[in-house]
């Protein structure tokens, strides 16, 4: 039954592009691709939900009929990530069903409907594959289809450059992932074999596998300093695609790391854990600090993806430290925290990107300086955006808090370790997480306060209207999920506990994890009753003008701007930003009244300057040197072939 449903889900997904190409001439068929895609996603969600909650497994193996080993299977881990992909994409597609026709026409629209299902299918392939071939096949397609989706949104030199960086980094990462798989040879035909052979590997080889997987999946996840592509590629995609890339695609990298580190390798030395923990702390802090310095909404959100991947890595790192110290109960808690944060981030980050799409739809800009006052003009979009902001900041009663709370609790549990370094490092990591949380709160107070509150800062923002109904419904569904998981985390926690039990033998979610599920509904009820009571209590209300020190003429330019809001924090953390400022003053006749003043502040992250630039320069120099080999003279090429032949023959003779 499950197998049938899963197969029909795949077939339905793959049929959407064909249906799009057939139906686009037929006027009434315009809504068909979206409807078909949503229908198949509903089936996919149902399959994944049954697999996740009931723990049913099944396998689709076409290795017998094909010449390569290609098999899909589902265990709880796959089911969880499949659930994440399908359930989050469903509202995103609902949003797109109205967003895409409004913004794209003709061939571009058809290409979107062709590539979107293919992109989703490639992600499904990645998380359900049970052979390296199938995994890498999906992994590669995922990169290519997402790049294709970015290309649709327009063409310029800058965009091509960004897409180029995206592709180069993705392939460098894919090379590392392929390397990690190759190290399992000759026992690498399917995952079960790899699991068995990993136990027999030498410690050195295991470390090599881990490091390659860490680097390869880290590139996809966007950990600092491999994050360079993320703030370039995500903002230039169409908003629903950004939502899928940031919310869903990054999680496949977390899936890969969990599969390698916990499923294949099982456990390792504790420095693996410290490495992941450190990567998470650096990504989290730098991600949110860079985000604070941005005022383009989508770039800002992209940097927040780096931050949240950092939080997920903090959980994963502490889980690895616990497994290394043979404390699988606490490892289960930390791993649960990381996985739950994957789901939570998928939900609220998709919602934020959809919100950005709704803003650009209504106000035609994503520059925070041009927005303002949108809450009154777009009540639903504003409210769901507020919910998403509270979730990403990790405030209680919203979903982000639950996973951050679990991470905090796992850090506290670290103090119970007999290993002294774990007992000191893990509790201190809580300080880092608290700082990240505080910075995120400042950043989203800025985003929501400048973007949605106060007065509109431009005419476009003042004329904004609420977006169409399907777009509202898509965002509303995601916002509901934020609140439901935030108040009743028990719904997912129990099954996640079962999932971690599968991954970490002998582990059960400790009872501490459930104390939150008891107290949160009561707090929610109390807050609801009290706030409802206050709101219901009729208070005389009078509209007035904003206080302007008794002077007339307060206008929207006098409001605090986004750079002004973040200035104190940027000043305190100025060593992170290293802005290059140039001030040019052209003096006038009396030197006190300059003719013109121009000020420029450019922030290039130190990574580009000190880490990537030398590497890129070295590669380019080497390539130029090697160009001398390419003379264009056919005799020389024949000589190369001859020399290669001789070398191979000699190799065969002595090897």
């Amino acid at each position: 039954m499950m197998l049938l449903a899963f197969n029909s889900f795949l077939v339905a997904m793959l049929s959407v592009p064909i249906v799009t190409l057939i139906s686009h001439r037929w006027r009434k068929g315009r809504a068909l691709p979206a409807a078909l895609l949503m229908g198949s996603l509903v089936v996919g969600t149902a399959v994944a939900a049954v697999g996740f909650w009931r723990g049913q497994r099944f396998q689709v193996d076409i290795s017998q009929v094909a010449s390569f080993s290609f098999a899909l299977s589902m265990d709880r881990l796959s089911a969880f990530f499949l659930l994440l992909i399908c359930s989050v994409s469903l509202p995103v597609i609902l949003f797109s069903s109205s967003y895409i026709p409004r913004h794209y026409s003709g061939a571009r629209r058809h290409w979107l409907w062709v590539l979107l299902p293919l992109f989703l299918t490639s992600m499904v392939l990645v998380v359900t594959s049970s052979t390296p071939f199938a995994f890498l096949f999906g992994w590669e397609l995922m990169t290519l289809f997402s790049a294709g989706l970015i290309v649709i949104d327009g063409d310029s030199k800058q965009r091509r450059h960004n897409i180029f960086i995206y592709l180069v980094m993705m392939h460098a990462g894919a090379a590392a992932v392929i390397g990690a798989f190759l190290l399992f040879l000759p026992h690498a035909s399917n995952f079960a074999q790899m699991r068995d052979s990993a136990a027999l590997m030498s410690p050195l080889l295991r470390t090599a596998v881990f490091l390659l997987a860490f680097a390869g999946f880290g590139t996809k996840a966007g950990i600092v300093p491999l994050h360079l592509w993320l703030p370039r590629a995500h903002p230039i995609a169409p908003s629903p695609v950004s939502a899928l890339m940031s919310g869903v695609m990054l999680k496949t990298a977390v899936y890969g790391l969990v599969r390698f580190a916990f499923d294949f390798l099982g456990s390792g030395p504790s420095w693996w854990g410290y490495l992941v923990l450190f990567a998470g702390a650096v990504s989290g802090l730098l991600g949110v600090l860079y985000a604070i310095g941005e005022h383009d909404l989508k770039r800002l959100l992209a940097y927040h993806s780096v931050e949240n991947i950092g939080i997920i890595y903090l959980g994963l790192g502490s889980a690895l430290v616990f497994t290394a110290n043979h404390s699988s109960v606490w490892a289960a808690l930390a791993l649960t925290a990381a996985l739950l944060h994957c789901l939570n981030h998928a939900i609220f980050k998709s919602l934020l990107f959809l919100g950005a799409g709704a803003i650009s739809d209504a106000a035609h800009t994503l520059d925070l300086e041009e927005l303002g006052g949108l809450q009154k003009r777009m009540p639903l979009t504003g409210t769901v955006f507020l919910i998403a902001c509270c979730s990403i900041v990790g405030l209680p009663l919203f979903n982000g808090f639950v996973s951050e709370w679990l991470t905090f609790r796992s850090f506290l549990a670290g103090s119970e370790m007999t290993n002294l370094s774990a007992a000191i490092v893990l509790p201190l990591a809580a300080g880092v997480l608290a700082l990240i949380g505080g910075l995120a709160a400042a950043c989203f107070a800025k985003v929501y306060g400048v973007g949605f509150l106060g007065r509109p800062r431009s005419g476009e923002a003042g004329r904004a209207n609420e977006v169409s109904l399907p777009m509202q419904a898509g965002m509303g569904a995601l916002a509901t999920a934020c609140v439901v998981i935030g108040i009743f985390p028990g719904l997912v926690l129990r099954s996640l506990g079962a999932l971690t039990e599968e991954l970490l033998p002998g582990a059960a979610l400790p009872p501490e994890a459930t104390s939150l599920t008891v107290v949160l509904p009561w707090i929610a009820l109390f807050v609801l009753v009290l706030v409802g009571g206050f709101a219901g209590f009729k208070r005389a209300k009078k509209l007035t003008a904003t206080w302007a020190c008794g002077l007339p003429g307060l206008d929207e330019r006098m409001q605090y701007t986004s750079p002004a809001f973040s200035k104190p924090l940027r000043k305190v953390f100025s060593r992170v930003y290293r802005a290059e400022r140039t001030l040019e003053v052209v003096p006038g006749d009396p030197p006190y009244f300059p003719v013109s003043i121009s000020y420029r502040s450019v922030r290039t992250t130190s990574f580009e300057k000190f880490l990537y630039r030398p590497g890129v320069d070295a590669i380019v120099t080497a390539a130029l040197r090697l160009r001398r080999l390419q003379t264009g003279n056919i005799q020389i090429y024949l000589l190369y072939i001859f020399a290669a032949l001789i070398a191979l023959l000699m190799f065969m003779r002595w090897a």
Partner: protein
Amino acid sequence: MTLMTNVLQVLLLILLAPLVRGVISRIKARIQNRRGASVWRPYADVLKLFRKQDLVPASASFVFRLAPMVVFTTTLVVAAFVPLLHGSALLGVTGDFVLLVYLLALGRFFLMLGAMDGGSSFGGMGASREALVSTLAEAPFLLALMSVAIAAHTASIAGMVQWTMGQNFFQFSAVYALAFAALVLVAIAETGRIPVDNPTTHLELTMIHEAMVLEYSGPSLALIEWASAIKLTVVMALLIALFVPWGMASSVSALALGVASLVMLLKIAALVLALALVECSVAKLRMYLVPDFLGVASALAILAVVFTALMR
């Protein structure tokens, strides 16, 4: 009976909070050689404000009026975490220190949004400064509480208090002094007192908290004022409960609770006096010195965690 005492504790914290504020300003006035207003003045203020109209800027959205309610409600929930008269609280067992810190953050986040909804530069200025202070205060706050949690082997506030009550005062770990010092610095920043912020300032350019609530009036302002009074009292009660809980009732009987109330009143009076003395003798810090102030708190909190882990 325990449940009733727990409810009584929350009610005491809520109802006595304005009095604590009144006493502080009265003592400050005496130190500064003024007569000062009656200690009951904060009650009169809140009552007066509740009877007034709510003035809302024309540009503001529903967030403007929602924010004070959220601030007030979250402060009430936090009040239910802290043991006052005996070693237990309404949410003391299930409510842990992470939830406490983040509930306060929830209220603050909404207050910042409410400030920005007014559409004037003062609100944005206050919110921006509050963002700076609260961001840097969050990590030391959490770490200092964590060091106590590590020592007590529990995350719940009531559990920590019961553990401390079981300790002998004279065998008390000196490491605790670090956590206490860090928490005191954080508490000053968190409740917006001198030297971080001046609650009685009249100059918009130096305001933090007051700039945020500049646009509020009537019942909304009453909620904010009352909430900040409760927050001050709750933070004081938290400091007492975590570090000097001796004297709290070990059994729930009328006599023990009566004695515990007297002891608690004395402790709070001592803290109030100390606060008033500090506020009269120290000047407010320049805003860009506040990060250094909180940096000291962070360093103390980190040391507290490291030493607690080492001594365990």
